[in-house]
């Protein structure tokens, strides 16, 4: 297994108007993302999570410290093309990411720029549309698609480059539950079956619990970095950062505050039901 992204001692401030003190958005971030991982990043607006993600494929350049992608220095302009072929990014608003007037042309856009031969391009576009489940929409106009479908077109456009890693910055924030499920299913499939490394920035806890690893950010720093089960035990801390906690974990937390002894590491409905059964059965709890 190789390291996809390695961030060491990264700090970043956005340039400000003259005379004003620069506002530092990231403070001394150290982070390693290994090939095949599915990492979710949580944090409220302005915590620096998008800024961090934009360093992963060289959209932003570190003020201090370094970012290496597949061993290449992201601060070196020479490496950017190769980095962006391997690390693609999907943004929040599906409407801002579609360029062409027909779905398959949109998916082919990056390939055309890379000078991929036509036959190869057609094959990759087919494959990418298949992976996101939109093969039958290839001749449609993107603006006639739903938000979830548009996001999947955007994902397909990246997949066509056969990247090692996809970064998604709140890809489901503007979607309905059905669109969210479609996109999440697609993301999981890419990670589990195609072994593509995934970095998912999200506000939705039910999405974060599906990751292998959850990073919580606040005020430009990484506060937590662990498995979802461990991270969502910190209900009090997550509340204080105004983040949501899955309702099931929240219920366990609320019961514990009443001195009812339940474990706090409950992530899904089934586990929650099982714990309440134990509690009511009176058998295994003390």
């Amino acid at each position, binding site marked *: 297994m190789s390291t996809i992204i390695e961030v060491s001692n990264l700090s970043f401030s956005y340039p400000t108007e003259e005379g004003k003190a620069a506002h530092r958005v990231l403070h001394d971030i150290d982070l390693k993302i290994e090939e095949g991982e599915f990492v979710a990043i949580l944090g*409220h*607006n302005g915590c620096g999570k998008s800024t961090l993600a934009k360093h992963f494929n060289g959209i932003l350049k570190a003020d201090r410290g370094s970012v290496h992608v597949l061993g290449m220095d992201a601060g070196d302009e020479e490496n950017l093309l190769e980095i962006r072929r391997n690390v693609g990014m999907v943004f*929040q608003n599906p409407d801002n990411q579609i360029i062409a007037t027909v779905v398959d042309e949109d998916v082919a856009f990056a390939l055309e720029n890379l000078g991929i031969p036509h036959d190869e391009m057609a094959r990759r576009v087919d494959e990418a549309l298949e992976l996101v489940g939109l093969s039958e929409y290839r001749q449609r106009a993107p603006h006639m698609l*739903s*938000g*979830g479908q548009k996001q999947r077109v955007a994902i397909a456009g990246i997949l066509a480059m056969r990247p090692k890693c996809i970064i998604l910055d*709140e890809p489901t*924030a*503007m*979607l*309905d*539950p*059905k*669109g969210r*499920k479609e996109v999440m299913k697609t993301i999981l499939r890419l990670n589990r079956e195609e072994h593509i490394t995934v970095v998912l920035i999200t*506000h939705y806890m*039910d999405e974060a619990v599906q990751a292998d690893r959850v990073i919580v950010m606040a005020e430009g720093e990484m506060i937590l970095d662990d498995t979802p089960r461990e991270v969502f035990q910190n209900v009090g801390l997550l509340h204080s950062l*105004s*983040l*949501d906690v*899955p*309702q*099931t974990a*929240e*219920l366990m937390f*609320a*019961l514990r505050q*009443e001195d*009812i002894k339940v474990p706090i590491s409950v992530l899904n*409905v*089934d586990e*929650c*039901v099982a714990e*309440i*059964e134990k*509690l*009511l059965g*009176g058998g295994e709890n003390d």
Partner: protein
Amino acid sequence: MIKTEHLSHFYSVGTPFETVAIEDINLHIKKGEYVGVIGHTGSGKSTLIAHFNAILKPTSGKIFIDGKDLWSEDKKQRIQTRFDVGLVFQYPEHQLFEETVYKDIAFGPKNMGLSEEEIHRRVEKAMRFVGLSESVLEKSPFDLSGGQKRRVAIAGVMALEPKVLILDEPAAGLDPMGRDEILGRIREYHQETGSTVLLVSHSMEDVSKNADSILVMNRGRCQMHASVPEVFERADELEKMGLDVPRITRVFFALQDKGYPVSRNVFTVEQGKAEITRLLKEGGKNHA
């Protein structure tokens, strides 16, 4: 307050692209009701609400606002309806355009032909409802943060003091803190003014926390319009439509299916906690 009879709307009528957006909608929304409007994208919810303030004209069927036929010959009536039914679109901050926050919020009331004094009163009141401070009044709305811009946009509609306030996904794209804040403000507005509120949302959790009733749209039809518990009772049907019930509700459904004497009307963590502590107490009595 709002009544529809066999309301239908087709897009691109007379072309090969003719599509049914909504069909045969028969609704009755009471005065002061807080309705959550749920449905996946393309289910017709935006088309439906655009009829309530006469932005769209029905292909067939009728709409009554406060008992009056919206598309009768009386054109004045229709103009009045646009003031009586305030519609906040999705991402309303994209529609800000004035030089200052004050002017932007005052735009609607000004068009109503109100006096300066009355406009001033309404702007101030609307700002209070959305939680904007006086200090931003003379700023350009474009210098504000995303969350503040959205508040300005919502205040602009509230300043019409509409009898019906319709909001299309007012929390979309906000983080949990921003979402709770906006929804809390709308709830206060509803309680204080007693106006009818329609909240279009994708989040069952948000709707169940705020609304009295839920209107479920699916494939252009109104599939359900009933109280929150009644709608969640039909969880299986909701799932087939690509909709969800809150997780916590699922936990209690599962417990009841397993034979525990729990209520099925649990939509929030607080309700869940109360229900379990109640059970534990009763369990204790039985043992004693």
